[in-house]
């Protein structure tokens, strides 16, 4: 059965369809303009960043062969000519020859991340309420704390680590401090945003009962924000484990020192062994913190 759709008469339809075509043309034009702008910016950036497509095409094979090389034994294993050219899984003992040393360094790396996270979070906890609009009436305090936190998170942690290595000497201390400062900046911002979104009724209640500012924070604010703070801190720990794995690049402790040496001195199988260990650690930590975070969120929603 044919359905007769009502159709506008031509004289009323044509202005509508013209307007539609006009709108589409306008949108296409602006998209085209945006594309041209991005392309121009890309060309300028390519020139600034010395992009050489030809060299890239010539050497792209090296990138993939690098990965095949780090997973195959070369002639670096003394007294084992039979291993040359074999995949590393062939002899796990030879591949992971430094496992004891590397595991110890991995534990160091995790400790650096943990100490940095805890120290930074304590600092963030102390400062976040001073930066929250609803809890800190004095504008100058709020603004100066906010600027300070911004400074802490904008300067990359590796830059802090470089400076601290000179002040405190080589070793894990500068790594811990660098991560702590960055964590303070990042968590401080997130914490203060959480504190700005709380329910203000308990705060009013404590103020009405004659509570001091600290009592307001302790009894009206902290119970509301604690689970969110814990969740953000776990997330930050996860990020800090990755960060701690490269702290050794500038001499600030952890497994990074061994990794950069292995890469620079072309100890191919060591590179893959350390990378595999780092990736495995990061994945395990991700899984654990995700579990914990979900448990925390579950507790929160049950309340």
């Amino acid at each position, binding site marked *: 059965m044919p359905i007769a759709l009502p159709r506008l008469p031509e004289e009323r339809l044509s202005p509508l369809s013209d307007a539609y075509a006009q709108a589409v043309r306008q949108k296409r034009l602006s998209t085209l303009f945006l594309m041209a702008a991005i392309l121009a910016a890309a060309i300028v950036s390519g020139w600034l960043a010395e992009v050489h497509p030809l060299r*890239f095409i010539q050497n792209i094979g*090296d990138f993939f062969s690098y990965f095949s090389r780090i997973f195959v034994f070369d002639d670096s294993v003394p007294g084992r000519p039979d291993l040359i050219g074999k995949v590393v899984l062939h002899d796990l003992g030879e591949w992971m020859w430094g496992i004891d040393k590397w595991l110890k360094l991995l534990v160091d790396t995790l400790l650096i991340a943990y*100490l940095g996270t805890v120290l930074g979070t304590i600092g963030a906890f102390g400062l976040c309420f001073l930066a929250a609009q609803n809890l800190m009436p004095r504008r100058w305090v709020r603004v100066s704390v906010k600027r300070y936190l911004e400074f802490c998170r904008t300067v990359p942690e590796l830059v802090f680590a470089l400076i601290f290595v000179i002040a405190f000497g080589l070793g894990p201390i500068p790594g811990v401090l660098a991560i702590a400062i960055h964590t303070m900046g990042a968590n401080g911002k997130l914490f203060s945003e959480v504190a700005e979104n709380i329910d203000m009724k308990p705060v009013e209640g404590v103020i009405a009962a004659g509570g001091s500012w600290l009592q307001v924070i302790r009894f009206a604010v902290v119970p509301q924000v604690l689970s969110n703070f814990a969740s953000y801190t776990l997330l930050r720990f996860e990020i800090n484990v*990755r960060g701690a794995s490269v702290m050794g690049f500038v001499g600030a402790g952890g497994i990074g020192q061994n990794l*950069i040496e292995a*890469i620079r001195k072309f100890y191919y199988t060591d590179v893959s062994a350390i990378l595999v260990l*780092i990736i495995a650690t990061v*994945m395990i930590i991700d899984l654990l913190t995700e579990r914990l975070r979900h448990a925390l969120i579950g507790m929160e929603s049950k309340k």
Partner: protein
Amino acid sequence: MSSALREQALAEAAGLAARHPRVFNPPLTRRLATLAVIAALAGLFVYGFHALGFSASRFIGGLAQLGSFVGLMIPPSPGSVSKGVIYLNALAETVAIAFLGTLLAFFFAFPLGFLAARNATINRAVQLLTRRFSDSIRGVDTLIWALIWVTVVGLGPFAGVLAIMTSDIGNFTKLFSEAIETSDRKAGEGVLSTGGSRLHEIRFGILPQVFPVIIGQTLYFFESNTRSATIIGIVGAGGIGLHLSEQIRTLEWQAVSFIIVLILIAVALIDFISTRLRLAIIGRNEVAV
């Protein structure tokens, strides 16, 4: 008057405690569990300091030295005009690295994001494979990628571009696929019901919903990549990091603070621009990430 009120409230306290036993007197097991968690965390904290060889004297000595460094950093100065020009040039290079790396990662991760999303992929095996691929890329820090690319294309900013691109392919694939998975299915079903193919569904049902979100995330990462690009120079992958680490190692503190101020200004500028662009594209009312 107020003391009378206070007396009254205090007299009421016992009754209040009796009415809300869970607040005033939580069960012992719960208290013990809280205490145990706090004790374990604190114990690990103390053990960590011990295991990493912290010593108070070294810490205090370091702090004193740090204080003297900060004193030497003021006022920030590049040293000479020609050096200032070199630093500005390196800063432009840094921004260029971040821009190009983000752009390239966007182009690679855009199709990968669809492959890794449950509702837009080809089949389950492809989806899981893409997911694992992006997870492994994300497990490796940008700086490590920079080292690897330096061995492939040589020292210079191009290695930095490739490093930022590589690590962001992992990040973007994850974020894009999550955005695609949370998109509303109804639009896609509508396209399918009028006889559209799977590709039509993705193009007209999913893409219009997720595109603003994806652009917002990309812009957000452009800002954070500018920060990453300032340090990849430490391993020789271009940008201002090379100069910064050089000036730190040679103890030219005024130049160090000058470069840090440059970085702060550049990041703030890009933050400002990308927030503007994000709001223009997404609209003020929607949440970006």
